[in-house]
Each structure stands twice: as structure tokens, then as C-alpha cells.
């Protein structure tokens, strides 16, 4: 599952176009947790970042040397490479609320300051 999914869509209103989100999901083979994490991530991105994100899935079983670079301990781990600063979210991303807090993406309902 060394698939990289790049999705670009038209820019949503109120957001700057240059702000591309680079996300990296670390997994270790296709375990139920990994699969759940991927689908959860996909869903959240589609909802909140449609067109402005890029997800890279890294299978550590296949590329173990990559774990060192991002200091990965837990599986699955989602790393927000961009925008800075780097954020890490561990777990299967089932708690959407916490994923949004972790990614610094407030839910659409809350007011957002520039």
C-alpha cells in the first residue's frame, strides 16, 4: 500500500490557494487500524480540505528506514508536514473532533480568525 494519493480541487471560498496541506500517513502493512485510519483521513480531508491537500501513505514494513526521519513510534501516525509547524496525530483517526484539533483545522461551525 505504497500508494500516494494526490487530490487537487478548486479552491474553496475564503482560503488562500497557495496553502497546500501536505499530509503523510505512516502505517505498517494493511492492518484494520491502518485501513481505518486511511479512510478516516480521506473523509476528513474531503470534508475540510477539499482540493488543498496531499496525502502520502508510507508503509514502514516496506520502507523501515523512513521511520527515523519523522520520528515515528506509533502506528498509524499522521504527520502534517505542511503547513508548519509539524503536527503528529497518532491513532486510527476515528475521533474526528480530535483530528481536527490536532491538524489545527477548526470545524466549519466555529468562527475562524485570519
Amino acid at each position, binding site marked *: 500500500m505504497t500508494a500516494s494519493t494526490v487530490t487537487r480541487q478548486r479552491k474553496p471560498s475564503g482560503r488562500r490557494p497557495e496553502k497546500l496541506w501536505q499530509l503523510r500517513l505512516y502505517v*505498517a502493512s494493511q492492518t484494520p487500524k491502518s485501513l481505518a485510519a486511511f479512510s478516516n483521513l480521506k473523509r476528513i480531508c474531503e470534508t475540510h480540505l477539499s482540493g488543498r491537500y496531499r496525502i502520502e501513505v508510507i508503509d514502514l514494513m516496506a520502507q523501515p528506514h523512513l*521511520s527515523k526521519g519523522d520520528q515515528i513510534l506509533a*502506528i*498509524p501516525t499522521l504527520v502534517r508536514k505542511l503547513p508548519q509547524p509539524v503536527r*503528529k496525530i*497518532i*491513532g486510527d*483517526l476515528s475521533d474526528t473532533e480530535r483530528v481536527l484539533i490536532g491538524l489545527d483545522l477548526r470545524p466549519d461551525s466555529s468562527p475562524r480568525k485570519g
Partner: protein
Amino acid sequence: MTSRSVRKSIAAPVPRLPKCPTGIQGLDEITGGGLPRGRPTLVCGGAGCGKTLFATEFLARGATQFGEPGVFMSFEETDAELKLNVASLGFDMAALVRRKKIVFDHVYIERSEIQETGEYDLEALFVRLNYAIDSIGAKRVVLDTLEALFTGLPNEAILRAELRRLFRWLKTKGVTAVITAESGREQFTRHGLEEYVSDCVILLDHRVNDQIATRHLRVVKYRGALHGTNEFPFLIGDDGISVLPITSLGLNHKVSSGRISAGIPRLDAMLSGRGFFRGSSILLTGTPGTGKTSVAACFAQAAAQSGDRVLFFSFEESPNQIIRNMRSIGLRLEPLVQRGLLRFHAARPTLCGLEMHLATMFKEIVAFQPTVVIVDPITSLLSAGSDHETKGMVTRLIDFLKGGQVTSLFTSLTHGGYALQQSEIAMSSLMDAWLLLQDFEGNGERNRVLYVLKSRGMAHSNQVREFLISDRGVDLVDAYIGPHGVLTGASRVAQAAREKAEALTSQQEAARRKRELKYKRATLEQRIASLRSAHEIDAAELERMDAQVGTQTRVLTAERTELARLRQADVVRVAPRPAAKLKAGSRR
């Protein structure tokens, strides 16, 4: 080394727990060969007690001495920091890393960067460790300090389950692992890691007694193997950790029957004429000012002059002070120092802990390779530790010296009168010879005496000798022992003078009597002579009388014959007769 090989030979038929030698000085002796091979070992202790160093040395020695590559997974320090830290111990980590003997992996966890949502595991850590192990074929693994995970990861339940899995995984991987952990209040580690690591637990401790810090190591648990359970002091020196086991050395020193002079001829005479045994340990005790250092310096000078290498540890005086003071009693130590036969090492006892002293002494001894070592005084080190510790230290020092066939002399200060201190009694059992210096006070002066309390393996004198220090050196003289007890100093001299006077008097008396007798004899002889002359006169008189009588008789007989002839009487045949008969006849 010897004890290990002995143990091995005894237990040969039973399959034993395979051990993984650490290469750390002393630790392999305590554990009977090292850490359990292929199993995790927990090393716990407070801050700054040497956990990381222990782990690093285990890895570095494994890579350099035992050909076992290792992985260092650090949760606290970065690779660069670690490399720098161990460089001071003489291990070139960078080179080891280049040669693929050691892999450093710094695991960085920052709680604030981590958000937790839902289920996860630590598979990535396993993957990472596995990758590191496989990349160099590592046999040893260090995890320093796993407890950082507890602060980095919020879900303790998951963490504990994963740790259990990790240790199981390490075992199946077959690597010998050292896991360090901070010690906790009521359990060995703060987060109860000992629950998971059940094969071997080593506790490090750094405690301060009377402002002197000493490090201790204790093997709390070692499943399936005998191990020393004592607390062993250990040191962190220039070449890493060295554990100093008190009991690991067996009593199997080689012994020598060679002798070494004590430097004082009369003292040699007291020791069956030839001095101390080579390689023996000698205790010299005495109250202040009894001349312990002088005796020690005499010994040092004599030994150095006869070609021995002498190492003098001074804990009271500086080398220059000793040299100056000894010059006043006629000892010339300076040339010996210059010739490199005598070496001083002076240090304040309170400079560092006992263990550090011991380590320094070991190092000096190894560097100088002496055949004679003098410690002056050993009691000063008491202030650097408790009696018990000092004894332990002396034991180890003696063992070390005896192992190297080094003759050692320890002076020991006693306080007051005749009471022997507890520590000396404890120490004396370790010693082969014990000389006692004492003060005798009386007649307004103090005098020194010396006696040999014990000397193993030789017939030694039981006599008290007076000990004289003059500008020509140290000498022993017979103390006067008479009806008034032992006399020393002025009273000995007075006694000697008295005896001399008495002897003179009796000599004179004898001469007088001799003269008298001579006179008497002469008188007697005179009398004998006069008697003899009187006797001679008598004898002459007697002879004369005899002759007279003879003549008279003859004349008489002639007259009678003539008369008879004239009267024409019968002829009387006169047979020749003895004079007496003639006399008798004449009387008739």
C-alpha cells in the same frame, strides 16, 4: 578470572544460562560471566548514577572486544550528544558507527506535537528497532530510557501492553538488551518496568555520606544464575566503569619465601634475622610521634637502594616535607626519587571518596609497577569513609598488591595509651606482620619502644626493643629489663651507669682480695721457707749426731777389743752388725 574458570569447571556437565560478557571491569566477576544472553536486563538508578554510561560501555565493549555489534536507541539524548559523551571514555563511537559496529537511533518524542485519536500501537518502534538491528546484525541493544515514552505518549494502557510485547519481541529476536530506567520511590523504577523485565535487574546508586559521594552497584535479581548480592562500589574513571568487588578475589595468591630487609638491621634480626617476606603486608601501628613515618621511610630507602621500586602513598605530608624531615634523621630519599626508584603520591584523604582513592592507587600502582608499596597512614582514609568501607578498601588493596607480589607497608595511627582501635583490630587480621610502636612515659621523658606483635610464617622475637631516632637514622637497642620492669631512655642509661659503677666496684674489690690473697700466700711461703731451713738445720744436726755416734761406737769397740786383747779374753767374733744393734748392744 580464576574464580570464573574454577566455577566453570565445577559446573561443566549442567547446561548453564548463556552469559553475555559486558567487559565492564568487575561486573562480569559478580555476575559470573556477564548479563543473560539474549534477554533484556534492566538497569535502574537515580539521576546521574551512570545508567547511560553503563549502557554505552556495554555496547562499546561488545563491539570492540567481543565482536558483537549493537544498537543504541536513545529516547533522551541525540546521537551527537551521545557520541560526545562517550568520547571522553576513550571510545571512538564515530569510528564504530562508520565501521557499522554501532548504530545510534535517537527517538524524539514531544508530547505537545502529538495528538491522540483512537487506536494505535507502537509497531513503528518495533520496525525501527528491527531495521536498526538487521542493518548491522546487532547482538546487543540498549534502550535509554524507555520511560521517556511514558511522558511522550498519553495512553498508558496501550504503552504498557506494547512494552510487554517489546520485551517479548526482544527475546525472540535473541538480542541481549540493556534497558535503563529512572528509579522510583517504592519500586525499582518509576513506571514499574521491572514488571516486564524479569531476567536481570541491576540497581545503580549514588549516595553521599559525610559529603563524600560513592557509587554503588547491586545485582537485585538474576534469574537462573548465582550472583553477588552485595552492594559493590563502582567508579567512573577515564576508561569507563569499574566495579570493585570485595569478595570476588579468592585467597589464592602465590606466595614467596624471599625476604626483604626492613631497613633497620636490628629489626631484621627480630624477624628471624632476614626481614619481612616479599609480597607480605605489614601493619605498623603507633600513637602520634612514635616514628611510624620514619620506620616506613627507612624501609623505603633500604628497599629502593637494593633496587626495588618503591611507591609511597602519603596522606598527611607532602613529598617534599617527607624528604626534608627524613633528611634530619639521616635518610637521603631525594637521590632515589631522582633515580626513579622511589615515587611519592600525596593526596588529601578528603579530596575524594574512598573508591576514587582506591582507583587512583590502583592506577598509580599499575603505572609505576612497584615491588614495595607504602601507605602512610591508612587511618587517614578513615575520614573518607566508614570503618567498614575502609576495611573493604584495604582488603581490596591488599588483594591487589598480593596478587602482584608487592610488599606493602601500612602505617596506622592509634589514639591514646595502649588501647587498640577497633579498626586496627579489624585490619590486623588481614596483615601478615604487625609491628607496634609505643611510647613509654616516665622520669620526665617519653621513650619509644618497638615490638613485633605478629609475623606470620617466621620465628620472630618476642622482645621489646627501644627504638632510637638519631641524626644517623633509626636504630633499635635492647631495652633494660630488670626487677623494676622495662627501662628505657635516661633510666636505661642510668641503670647502665649504675651497673657499670657496680661492676667497677666489684672489680676493684676482686683486685683487692686478690692482692690480699697474694700477700697471704707470700707470707705463708716465707714461713714455709723458714720452716724448711729450720728443718734442714735439724736434719744436718741429726746427721752429724749419727756420724758422731758411729765414730764413738767404733772407737769404743776398738778400745774394748784392745782391752780384751790386753786382758787375753776369749776372742769374740764380731760379725758386721747394723748400727742400731751395735747401739743396743752397746747399751746392754
